[in-house]
């Protein structure tokens, strides 16, 4: 369960103060499928980064699975990220010099899993995401949809409880985008909490719970 209480995140641009998140209160239960929509600059990405422990709020509390994770050290936060969170980005963020298989293997290496087990799990995942034929290809040799599939495979190989996707279809055409969404929804059906930030109304409406944001506030929250 994700529980945010009065979360505020302020950026400074010279003299100017930008409240990217302004006293956000939000509870997301395990296994929910949530979309976050709103105009550009409304704080969607910042909210996702705070939930994913990639960014620290300036004030407020964050409780993840009944544990207060607001003041964890950098190393502890990294650990929580590794074990509970999976990120999917608009720009894929694959490591260009590594093959698809190696990109998918990264979280396993970071988690200190022995090579033999890594090999098996990578192969399983490649198979599950229909990427076996592309295992030895580098990102530059993959299509956008394939790249995002690799990124999702990487984000989920450690079976995180929450999958955070920031505009996952933003760089894809409509058809590939739909395939990627279907993939994410499959993972949600398997029990993962799914939070998707999107510009795409149609995509946003597919979620069971839709959150609207504007100027760092939550302005809508419909089931």
């Amino acid at each position, binding site marked *: 369960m994700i529980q945010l209480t009065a979360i505020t995140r302020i950026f400074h641009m010279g003299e100017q103060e930008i409240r990217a998140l302004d006293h956000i209160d939000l509870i997301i239960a395990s296994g929910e499928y949530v979309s976050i929509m709103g105009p550009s600059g409304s704080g969607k990405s910042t909210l996702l980064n705070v939930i994913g422990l990639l960014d620290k709020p300036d004030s407020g509390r964050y409780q993840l699975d009944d544990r207060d994770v607001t003041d964890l050290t950098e190393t502890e936060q*990294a650990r929580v990220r590794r074990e509970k969170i999976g990120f999917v980005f608009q720009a894929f963020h694959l490591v260009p010099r590594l093959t698809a298989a190696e990109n998918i293997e990264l979280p396993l290496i970071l988690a200190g899993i022995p090579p033999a087990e890594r090999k098996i799990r990578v192969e399983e995942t490649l198979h599950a995401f229909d990427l076996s034929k592309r295992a030895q290809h580098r990102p530059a040799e993959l299509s956008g949809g394939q790249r995002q599939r690799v990124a999702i495979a990487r984000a989920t190989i450690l079976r995180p409880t929450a999958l955070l996707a920031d505009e996952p279809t933003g760089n894809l055409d409509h058809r590939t985008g739909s395939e990627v969404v279907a993939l994410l929804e499959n993972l949600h059906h398997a029990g993962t909490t799914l939070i998707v930030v999107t510009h795409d109304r149609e995509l946003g409406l597919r979620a069971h719970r839709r959150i609207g944001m504007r100027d760092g506030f939550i302005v809508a929250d419909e089931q």
Partner: protein
Amino acid sequence: MKLQDTFLFSFKTVTSYPTRSFLIILAMALGVAAVVVLTALGDGARRFVIHRFSSIGTNLIMVLPGRAETAGSFPGATMGQTPRDLTLEDARWLGHLPQVRRYAPLNVGTAELAAAGRLREITILGSTANLLPIRHMQLAQGSFLAHGSQYSAQIVLGAKLAEEFFPDGNVIGQHVRLADRRFMVSGILSRQGETMGFNSDEIVIIPINHAQALLDTTSLFRIMVEVRNRSDIPSAKQAIRELMIQRHDGEEDVTIITQDAVLATFDRIFRALTLGVAGIAAISLAVAGILIMNVMLVAVSQRTDEIGLLKAIGAPGSDIRRLFLTEAAWLSLTGAIFGFMLGHVGSLLIRLAYPELPAWPPAWASLASIVIALSTGIIAGLLPAARAARLDPVKALSGR
């Protein structure tokens, strides 16, 4: 992240940027090779000189007339009066000291050598039979000055002179003239080349009394003393000094040089020199270190996206730091190993080109250069690694 995986991952990174890695490794390798080769040269020169100097004899003490340095307490105490001669009589007394195995008095001068219709100015050495064993000289033919032959007119020729004057090779028993005296050739020295200032291939050796008469002097050039044991050297030196002071009316007017002291001085000079060139060569290691730092800093900014991503999927800053440090370590270690091999090949080539120069790289220098290379690389990696570890993942991923 396991240490083993860290090393593997950063190794893969190193191989993913071949040109960049090759250039850094080359710079590091050249630095290490420079240290290895230059220390090999320095140490080779040291061994060469020490060997040459030890080959003139062992456990030697040389007694020279006159004081080399002014006496500390009474500067100029002996000034104005010429030092007393060092005489054959002094040498004979010296020979009675218990520590002394043998001694050879020495006179040096020049005279005209005439034989078989040829004439040439040459260096003559006056001495006794003991000179041969003391100076480790070798004969090519015939015999050296006989014991007790101070007055007999024997002469030993340097190898080159023998060839020059008697090209037909029939030398032993022939007569030659030195100034206006007749000598009979008793032996020929084997070729030795230059040793400590003399080219012993172009000298002649005659009995000491003949030499003194010929050169019209009673003062010796020096007395060479060989002591029984190495451990006797200090006490022998002391005994010689006391004996000479006593024989010279309480005046300390001889200089006593031990071969050990000269060797030690040479040794020290050459070691300092070697260290000096090693230090200069080590500067190139520092330059390679700066290169590594620069390239790693560039790598951090080139790989911000990757660093941000690694953090997003759960890498703590410490993992990132270790990845960059091990990358620097790989680069410098590979450079050091190649440099080590390059340096040893270089030293081998020098030894092949100059067989008389024992240019072996000293173990300490090889070890030190590798340790310095590795630590320079890691130190150079510290700043970039810290910068990478501190990178804000949100900014890194958004390209802000």
